[in-house]
């Protein structure tokens, strides 16, 4: 018998009678102010939210806060950038990028999680290997909780997808919070009305 058969046989002889799967409610609460809750959650996670009307305001923010001497990789139409990701193949080629700007598909107000699909980042390493990250979320894509988020996304639409809820952080040294462990040192989120 191979390992697979051994494991399956043992499970079959040891498992108890069938136990039904419960239905999962979506726990929606109509009175929640989604944007306000989203902003609060981001703040708790050491990220910043700006409400804007158009991409021009985001470009203004980038030119004010980031030097164009450094590499900026924007994968959002209308947002400035100077790094063409289509010219590289290896994840390691992304290592000198200072800032990436990506489109989030869904924002979750209870915990600030923002869903990025593989399509929206092209190379999976991009949102992690850079120094700073900007995510853009449409106001209409913000939902209250994780149940509603999973109704909106298809987790296997691409080969990879990730919820990002803040800058990379650690508290492994005496429980002291340090921002910027391995991934992006900052997360700025723009919500477009």
């Amino acid at each position, binding site marked *: 018998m191979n390992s697979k058969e051994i494991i399956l046989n043992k499970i079959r002889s040891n498992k108890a009678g069938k136990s039904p799967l419960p239905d999962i409610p979506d726990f929606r609460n109509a009175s929640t102010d989604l944007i306000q809750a989203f902003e609060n959650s981001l703040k708790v996670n050491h990220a910043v939210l700006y409400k804007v009307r158009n991409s021009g305001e985001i470009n203004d923010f980038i030119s004010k806060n980031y030097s164009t001497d450094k590499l900026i990789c924007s994968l959002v139409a209308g947002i400035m950038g100077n790094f063409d990701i289509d010219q590289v193949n290896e994840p390691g080629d992304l290592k000198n990028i200072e800032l990436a700007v990506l489109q989030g598909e869904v924002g979750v107000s209870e915990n600030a999680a923002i869903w990025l699909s593989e399509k929206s980042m092209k190379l999976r390493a991009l949102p992690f290997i850079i120094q700073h990250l900007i995510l853009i979320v449409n106001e209409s894509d913000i939902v209250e909780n994780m149940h509603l988020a*999973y109704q909106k996304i298809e987790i296997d639409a691409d080969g990879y997808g990730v919820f990002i809820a803040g800058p990379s952080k650690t508290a492994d040294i*005496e429980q002291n919070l*340090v921002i910027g462990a391995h*991934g992006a040192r900052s997360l700025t989120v723009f919500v477009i009305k």
Partner: protein
Amino acid sequence: MISHAKNAKGFLRDQEKTTWHDATLWNARTNRDRGSQKVAEWEQLRELASQIKNNVLSQLDDYLLQFEKNAVKNGAEVYWAKDADDHNRIIGEILKKHRVNSLVKSKSILTEECHLNQYLEKQGYEVVDTDLGERIVQFAKQPPSHIVTPAIHLKKEEIGKLFHEHIGTDEGASDPQYLTEAARKHLREKFLGSEAALTGVNFAIAETGGFVVCTNEGNADMGVNIAPIQIASMGIEKIIPKAEHLGVFLRLLARSATGQSITNYTSHFHQPKPNGKLFIVMVDNGRSDLLGKADFKNSLKCIRCGACMNTCPVYKRSGGYSYGYTIPGPIGSVLAPARDLEKYANLPFASSLCGACTNVCPVKIDLHDQLYKWRQEAAKKGYISTSKKWSMQMAGWVFSHPKLYRFLGSSARLMLRISPRFMIYNSLNAWGKSRELPKAPKESFRDWYLKNKN
């Protein structure tokens, strides 16, 4: 046999550190309370999580086969490992076949359980743990002392010394910000040069054939999204039926662990990256045996949040190493005896049975009941010390003779009041070690009740 009390002695020697350890973990418990209280449906979520896991355990074979089928369809290669040796051998063969010399790892308690690092290092591979806490204990040549915060037993000065020796930080430097920045630079080099990367699995979804990994540092993604070869090691109990169930577990996991509403990165892997390869190793290693133990199979529901450790008065004051098992604390004390009762028979006694662990468990494992039942199993097999056996028999005899009990009670109250200090606080009385006994009352509750019942 492992003796928790004996092991704890070393940890307790440094009183300042143990007080800090106790307070820091209690802080995590307080954060957990704050995080969970913000969710109105918290108790309902715990119940749902428990029911989903009940369903999983009742159809584990079906879900594993469904997962395998879908993962293969997605382009992954799936392996079944009946035990730790099998797991290590499979991973060794994957590395060998792809001529890989080094492996970067994100936190995986399963690979600790299987002693994968030691296995690979013996064969000459470079294994780099990339979770900051795990890198620290790897430098210290220690296992993790907590499943969520592996280096919780070390002070920043000790970590500074390790970093000075291994990655050349300034001598005497211990600022967490500075040390973390140094680790970031050091590990970036490792990530960029890596040929293969391994993660554990928090949840595997049968319906889609993919899996989810949660980190705050982003080290799992830095590893597997850069290296061409991706390996995931998962315990067979990590399966959940559908994507919608992730909503329930992800709302519970981070809040239970640290109080935060979600980990910063919650990554969903379904296919190998373009030009890359994805291997998934499903490991049994005793889990299917545990499934057959009706009183204890609930421990397979565990999602490894660590809440039971953070709240445990014994764990907080004795540290992870006192348990002598990969997973410490209440959950470790019920999982370890299932693996080897003779070796770990003492662990279920490392508990006050206060039930705090059961109350915080996000998947409603009946931890303190299981601890109590393991004690009985241990006693039945004769795996308890003679002094414990003798004193329990004595106590049983006294309790079944009310008159004798009342006589001994009143004598003890008298003796405690009139004896000189050295008679009570000496090496024969473990209850008097580093604590003051409560003042003995003049009368027993029974005496008081008889006087006052009218």
